[in-house]
Structure formats: structure tokens, C-alpha cells
């Protein structure tokens, strides 16, 4: 006689005494699988950082940052690439901030719930999903060839600005939307017109959110490679750029070319790794400052 089977009014009933404990066991086992797989992601991050730092040791030093580019690995430095990235930011920061914040103000304050607003909003979300290499093609066709800017800092900076524009727009939109209505009403109540209200009340309150978005956009622009490579930036640029019309190299481009050339010169891998460390530290500092800004100003309101 099977003791797990009972008869009740002619119906057979299975009674599994361990059913609950089995379910709990299964729960715990699967939970561990999920935890393990999440942990694996962390391990990958550690391995990635370890691999890059290990390869950069001995190559990353103050001299490496200060020397100009050279075909000889021992003599090569990334002064030009650092300056190139900085120059790039000289264009990207004002262009994206002005364009992005103005677009966000228009959507949130002026074109409320109109067809135009919806069009711009849909457009921004689609623009955010366009692959970066396509922006490179746009820059190549329009800025480099049609406007004759070549592979200059100006062409690269404008291309990059358009690429990161959606990030600033979305962040600025959210920041502006989060400004409480009563602040605007108080401003109107004191006789201020719409522009004064936006300039003196809305924007100052929304500033931390806008800055956070701006920093995220900048860190995206600093690491982005594909659009610059598509613009046709030459492999070896020894000259340090002096004007915005000069050819340039930037940190990610330098990493790209050095990684490609490791086949011929294995030492280039160390140079690429050292440049990556510089790039990652820069991005880390930027993101860290974004977090600080966010935390500091979040408390005030």
C-alpha cells in the first residue's frame, strides 16, 4: 500500500509530505543560480580592469602623458591625444548644452502637448538609438565634405555634439519638469514675464539636473570612437593642434590605432592599455562629480 495516496470520497489524493520543503529548496537553489550569474558579471568587470591595469603597468607614467606621439613605443606619449580630447570638449560642451537645453525648454515650456512637441520628442528618442557610426557618416558627408571642414577638430566636435544631444535633451527635460509649479506661479505673481521666469526661476532650480545630464553626455563623447574614425582622422598625427581647424587625434582614436597595430608592434598593446587607464580615470572622475552634484543639490529642495 502506497502511503502517499489517500482515498477521499472516491477521489485519489496525492499527499507529498515534503512538497513544501521541496518548493522552498528549489527556490533557494534557483536563487543561488541567479546570484551566481549576477556575481559573474562583477567578476568580468574585475577581470577587465585587472587585465588593462596589468598591461599598463610600467608604461603609464607622467612622461607618457607629457610626450608627443611617436612610432617608437618607448618614445610615444599621449600629450596630443589628451589635448585633442580637450579641444573636442571645447566644442561639444557649449554646442550640446545650448542646443540641448534650448530644445528641452521649448518642449517643456512653450510647445506643451502640441503636435510639434510630440514630433520633437519622438524624434529625440529615435535619434538616441541611431548607431554612432551613422553619425560618423553624417559628419563625413556634411561637415567634412560639404562644409569642407575635413577631419578637423571642428568637424569632429560638431559630429560628436549631435551624437550626444539626445542625452542632454532628455536630462534637461526631466530636470525642467521636476521644477515645482508653485515656483513658476510665484514668479508670475510678482509680475514676471515668461522668459524672466524661465531664466531666473526655472533654470537655476533645474541646473543640477541639467549639469548631471551634461556630464553624462560629455563622458559619452569622450569615449566614443566610431564617428571620429569614420571622419577619416589620419593614423599618425605628431603635430599638436593649435586651432580648431587642425587635424587632431583623441584618446579613443589613439587606443584604436594602437590596438590595430599590435600585430606589427606588440608593445603598442601596452600603450593602448595605458591610454585606456587614462580614459577610464577621466570618465570615473566625471561620473563621480555627477553623483556629487546630484546628491548635493537633491537635498536642497
Amino acid at each position: 500500500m502506497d502511503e502517499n495516496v489517500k482515498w477521499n470520497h472516491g477521489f485519489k489524493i496525492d499527499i507529498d509530505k515534503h512538497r513544501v520543503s521541496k518548493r522552498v529548496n528549489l527556490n533557494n537553489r534557483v536563487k543561488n543560480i541567479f546570484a551566481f550569474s549576477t556575481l559573474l558579471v562583477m567578476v568580468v568587470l574585475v577581470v577587465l580592469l585587472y587585465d588593462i591595469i596589468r598591461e599598463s603597468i610600467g608604461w603609464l607614467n607622467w612622461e607618457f602623458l607629457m610626450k608627443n606621439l611617436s612610432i617608437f613605443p618607448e618614445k610615444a606619449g599621449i600629450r596630443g591625444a589628451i589635448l585633442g580630447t580637450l579641444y573636442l570638449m571645447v566644442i561639444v560642451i557649449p554646442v550640446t548644452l545650448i542646443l540641448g537645453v534650448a530644445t528641452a525648454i521649448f518642449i517643456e515650456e512653450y510647445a506643451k502637448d502640441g503636435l510639434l512637441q510630440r514630433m520633437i520628442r519622438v524624434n529625440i528618442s529615435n535619434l538616441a538609438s541611431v548607431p554612432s557610426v551613422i553619425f560618423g557618416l553624417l559628419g563625413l558627408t556634411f561637415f567634412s565634405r560639404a562644409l569642407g571642414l575635413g577631419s578637423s577638430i571642428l568637424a569632429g566636435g560638431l559630429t560628436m555634439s549631435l551624437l550626444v544631444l539626445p542625452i542632454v535633451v532628455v536630462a534637461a527635460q526631466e530636470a525642467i519638469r521636476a521644477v515645482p509649479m508653485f515656483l513658476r506661479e510665484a514668479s508670475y505673481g510678482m509680475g514676471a514675464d515668461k522668459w524672466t521666469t524661465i531664466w531666473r526661476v526655472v533654470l537655476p532650480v533645474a541646473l543640477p539636473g541639467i549639469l548631471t545630464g551634461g556630464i553624462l553626455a560629455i563622458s559619452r563623447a569622450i569615449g566614443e570612437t566610431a564617428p571620429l574614425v569614420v571622419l577619416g582622422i589620419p593614423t599618425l598625427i605628431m603635430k599638436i593642434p593649435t586651432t580648431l581647424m587642425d587635424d587632431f587625434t583623441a584618446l579613443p582614436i589613439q587606443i584604436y590605432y594602437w590596438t590595430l597595430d599590435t600585430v606589427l608592434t606588440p608593445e603598442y598593446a601596452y600603450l593602448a592599455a595605458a591610454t585606456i587607464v587614462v580614459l577610464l580615470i577621466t570618465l570615473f572622475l566625471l561620473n563621480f562629480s555627477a553623483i556629487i552634484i546630484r546628491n548635493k543639490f537633491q537635498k536642497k529642495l
Partner: protein
Amino acid sequence: MDTIKIRNIIQQNIKNKKGVFDKIMPKFFLVMASISIIVTFGIVYTLLVDAMKFFAEVPLKEVFSTNLSPLSKNPTFGILPLLNGTILTTIIAMIVAVPAGLAAAIYLSQFANSKLRKVLKPVLEILAGIPTIVYGFFAYSFVTPLLMNMIPTLGAKNALSPGIVMGIMIIPMVASLSEDAMNAVPEIIKDGAYGLGSTKLETTFRVIIPSSISGIIASIVLAISRAIGETMIVTIASGSSKNFTFDITQSMQTMTAYIVEFTSGDAGSGTIGYYSLYAVGLILLIFTLVMNLLAQYISKKYREVY
């Protein structure tokens, strides 16, 4: 603030009431906001114009062939090798990213306590913020040599290693979007399941996932779109072989890598090779656009409304 100061401000405001700025600025904002639309049309226009020149020169039969040799004397422009490379690397990436991303999303949203979440979420954010060029270097200098130990026939450039690394890169995206979808399921429904005696696992698979499936699928579709458009990892680690092959241990080229190779090389303006760039770019744009519209459609159409 004292009364006099406020009165001053009001008086000043009234004086400024008919200010020039209030009239000019809306127009300025309109112009700025239209630029984003102009950019979109600019992208479509530049791609279409030059892609049309390509399709006018190259017969469709050749386009959909497996012969791709753009730099030879009699250049042929079959796109199938590029499509094949793109699809294969994307599939590999998805095999890595979807299980790992969903597992992380489920663990973070259902199982992990708040202390663990505070550690794990920033790690995912760091992973998401690493530039793709760094992943490319990682694939080429670390993952490929590692895989070579296991698969001796693996080429120095191959589709497997960038596929895997691309998957790792996409994990945070799948994880955070799916987690958002799962967190959007109301607590009441969850509590209902717990009240009936379900374990967390049963609640997750029978209640949470079915209710948030539209968001989860949308996140996967977006991840596919991201993988299709990803450039630097495949350019560095997958090489530029234009052979039509399904052997993922060998080098193959994706659409994005083709664009990079051709522009950074010396594609003379006005040649068919130069126009082929835009044809590939157009197809790439259509692919990613369709994926994004699909994701938006899925998350809207099948969203559970509570």
C-alpha cells in the same frame, strides 16, 4: 526678504514686462528645437542620396550575392557576407546577454536585499559606462587569447570573441530595462501571490514575469538593436574578412566594421565603393529603426494596465 525688496522686484518686472527677450526667446528655442529634426532628416537624406547612386550602378542581383570585394579591379558588392557577420555576432551576443541580463534583473528586483543592491547596481552602471573601444581592446587582447587555449583553430580575428564581449557590454542594458519592467509590477499583485503561499521563485515566474513580459521583450529587442549598431568591438576583434562563412572561429566583417574600414581607408569620393558605404549605412539605419519601433510597439501594445 523684506517688503521693499519684493516691491522693487515687482516694479522691475512690470518695467520689463514688454521685454525684447520675452518675444525673441521663444523663436530662438523653436529654431534650436528644430535642429534635432533637421539632423534626423539630414541623416536620412545623406544616406538616401548616395545609397541611390549605389543602387543605380549595382544590380540588385549582385547586392544580394555572397561576393564582396570592393577594392579589387572588378569590384563586387554583395552584402550577404556583411549581413551574415552582423547577424552571427548579434546572436552570440544575445546568447550571452539575455540569460545573464535577465538573471541579474530577477536577482536584483526579487531576491537581493537592499545592501547587495547598493553594491551591484553601481557595478552594472560602471559596466554600462565603459566605452566600447575598451571592450574592443579587452576582446582582442584578453578574450581571444583565452579562447585560443580552448579552441586551437580559433583565428586571431574571429566572430566568437567580439560576440561574447558585445554580450557582456549589453548585459547592463538588458538588466536595467528588465528590472524597471519588473519593478513596475504593483506590490499588491506580488503580495497576493505571497499570500497564497508562493515562494519567491514561483511568484517571479508565474506572476512577475508574465505581468512584465512586454517590458522584458522590449528590452531584448533594444539590446539586439544595440548589438547590430555596435562598431568598435567588432572592428577590432572580428577583422575584415569578407568571406561568406558560418564558421564563428574565423574572421568576418559586420556592416558597421565595413563602414569604418572603408572610411578610414582611402575611399575616393565618387566611386561606387564610396557610395556602397551609404547603402550599408542605410540598411543599418533601417535595421535599428525597425527594432526600436518594434520595441516601442511591444511595450505599448502588450503592457498590462493595472
